[in-house]
């Protein structure tokens, strides 16, 4: 399939500062993606460049085989047919809900316009609020109005800039699921920006992890978790710790918790220092295991405890254990490693430990 949205090697700067560097990714038609990254990493900037608000210094943005941005040339946002939901919603405060939704449909015939408005208000479940003003409805409802307004002119793609960040956590995932369903039904692709991985998992099929203006990995949630391309991704997605180790013969990695089989990173020779990603679910509590660790901290998670453990060397581990295994801080417990996908990175040079 030819890609629908194609972002090729773009740089964006607020002179003199370069904020986005060398980002490339592709999305298929009606696909749903997410750009995930810590605050300040350039997500909004990247999204605004796709919408046409920021020019690119380098690279190209294409949609449906048509060029939208290149250096020194930017198709204005009003001609792109790319909808956007803003972080602070930006509803028109002096217009009713229905008028807000109808605002982008001026060139439509009146009958079609109102039919579209009511269709969308039905979709977002707000038909009975059509005559209210934005300040007379709740935050979640305002969110839906903003969605309806953005979808009304039938955009080719919808961009969402952390639209859920002002809602409470419970509502967030619900709304993310709901908007996803609406987009799928309308056949409109979506690109969400978020710093919250659970929101991203709930919303998107494909997720790009951004850090300091660089796109580190563009992949499915499963692969981001189980096959992170990079130390930052591994650290940012899910929980886990890095256990220092050393490459052994062949594909063995020697760690304090024993030798593990795995695929070594490219360019690693036996003896090279590496680090092994250990997720909390890779460590099982086993009273019969000879491997012992001291409980430093524990957090109750309902069905499970999340234990923070200290190994003899001082290295820390996280371990999920069923909550009927109730151990106190300071106790030593037996553990076992059960790693399916071994994730190994070469350790940064310059960490010159005694050998």
């Amino acid at each position: 399939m030819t890609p629908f949205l194609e972002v090729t090697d773009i740089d964006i700067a607020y002179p003199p500062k370069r904020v986005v560097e060398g980002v490339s990714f592709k999305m298929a038609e009606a696909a749903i993606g997410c750009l995930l990254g810590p605050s300040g990493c350039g997500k909004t900037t990247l999204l605004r460049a796709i919408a046409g608000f920021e020019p690119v210094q380098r690279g190209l943005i294409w949609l449906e085989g048509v060029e939208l941005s290149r250096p020194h040339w930017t198709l204005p946002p009003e001609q792109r047919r790319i909808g956007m939901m803003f972080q602070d919603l930006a509803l028109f405060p002096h217009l009713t809900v229905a008028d807000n939704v109808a605002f982008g449909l001026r060139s439509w015939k009146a009958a079609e316009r109102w039919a579209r408005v009511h269709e969308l208000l039905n979709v977002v479940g707000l038909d009975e609020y059509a005559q209210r003003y934005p300040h007379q409805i709740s935050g979640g409802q305002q969110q839906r109005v903003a969605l309806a307004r953005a979808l009304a002119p039938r955009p080719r793609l919808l961009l969402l800039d952390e639209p859920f960040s002002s809602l409470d956590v419970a509502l967030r995932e619900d709304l993310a699921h709901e908007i996803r369903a609406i987009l799928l039904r309308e056949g409109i692709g979506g690109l969400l920006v978020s710093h919250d991985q659970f929101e991203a998992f709930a919303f998107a099929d494909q997720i790009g992890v951004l850090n300091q203006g660089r796109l580190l990995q563009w992949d499915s949630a499963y692969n981001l978790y189980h096959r992170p391309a990079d130390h930052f991704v591994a650290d940012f997605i899910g929980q886990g710790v890095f256990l220092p180790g050393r490459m052994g013969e062949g594909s063995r990695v020697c760690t304090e918790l024993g030798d593990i089989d795995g695929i070594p990173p490219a360019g690693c020779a036996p003896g090279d220092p590496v680090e092994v990603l250990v997720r909390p679910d890779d460590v099982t509590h086993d009273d019969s295991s000879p491997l012992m660790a001291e409980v430093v901290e524990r957090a109750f998670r309902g069905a499970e405890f999340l234990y923070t453990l200290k190994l003899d060397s001082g290295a820390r581990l996280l371990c999920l254990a069923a909550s009927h295994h109730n151990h106190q801080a300071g106790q030593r417990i037996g553990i076992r490693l059960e790693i399916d996908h071994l994730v190994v990175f070469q350790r940064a040079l310059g960490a010159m430990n005694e050998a």
Partner: protein
Amino acid sequence: MADSRVFPEPGKPALVQPEGAHYFCRGDWTLAGIEDLDSRLAGVNWPNKDLQLDGSGIGAIDTTGALRLLNLVAELERAGHPVTLIGLRPEQRALLDLVRERRADAGVSAPPLTRSNPLERLGRAFVSHAQAGLQFLGFVGEAAVSLVHALWRPDRLRWRALFGNIEDAGVRALPIIALLAFMLGIVIAYQGGQQLKIYGANIFIVELISLTMLRELAPLITAIIVAGRTGSAYTAQIGTMQITEEVDALRTIGIAPMDLLVLPKLLALVIALPLLTVFADALSLFGGMVMAQALLDVSFTDFLERVPRVVTLTSFLLGVGKAPVFAAIIALVGCYQGFHVRGGADSVGRQTTVSVVQSIFLVIAADALFSVVLGGIGL
């Protein structure tokens, strides 16, 4: 179990301990180890002489630690303690050299000390003003293009917004303009009348009032009032929409801000300001007339009879004809400054002030230009 020699204890805190003449660096000079180094260093007494920093006690060192160590040396030397770094193993020294070499690339060196001189500041101010001027011209050009499009397809024009703006900028401004024009007529008649009375040339008050008012003062005072009243409102309205991202939201649903926010305002003011000027003409003549009767015994009848004889149609039209130009200046500056609001609410206030000051300045400058050009062609 893997062999334990691979694993030094991670995260032993880095510190500096004085022992005799030597100051020993201990612990791990790594990202984790130097976490609270600053607080531990605060307790160290540095001697006031050459000092030997001994690195032989350093466990592990990484680039962050190396950078911190280099910075420590630099800090000490700046505080007047010449430092000799000893006891480092060759590989540690190599890392230190590497970090020192690459520090510039990493962008952590202090920015060069710049003290700008007045000439440089003047130059920068000039360049930034010239750029702002060019940007404004670009905005005027864009507005002109949209205007041509709109006049080509009048059905696409935002008629409701246009009439709303005419009401706001025109009809609602009538009372204040009536009052100020009337008072201006009184003031000019009073000052001029005092002089005319000396020579017994009382009746010439009609020339004085009608020509100054119709040609110069009425258009100017009207433009200044409208700049303060409507130009500032334009900036504030667009500026607020800019902050709440409503302007961006408009664009993403396919509406060009120029069409929705600028053109109706521009057209409304171009229509309203000449009409307001005619209104101000009448009221200021009335003010002069009242003063002429009270002070100079020139009756209303004498006054009104003389006006058409001294005021040519050209003078009247020149006065009113300046108004659309002033209107365009006020509307364009007001909108332009509104789009230049960035950040928060304080920026709206700042841009509004700038908008009023700039539009009044440009109106007066344009008026001066009119005088020079019209004088040159003998009107």
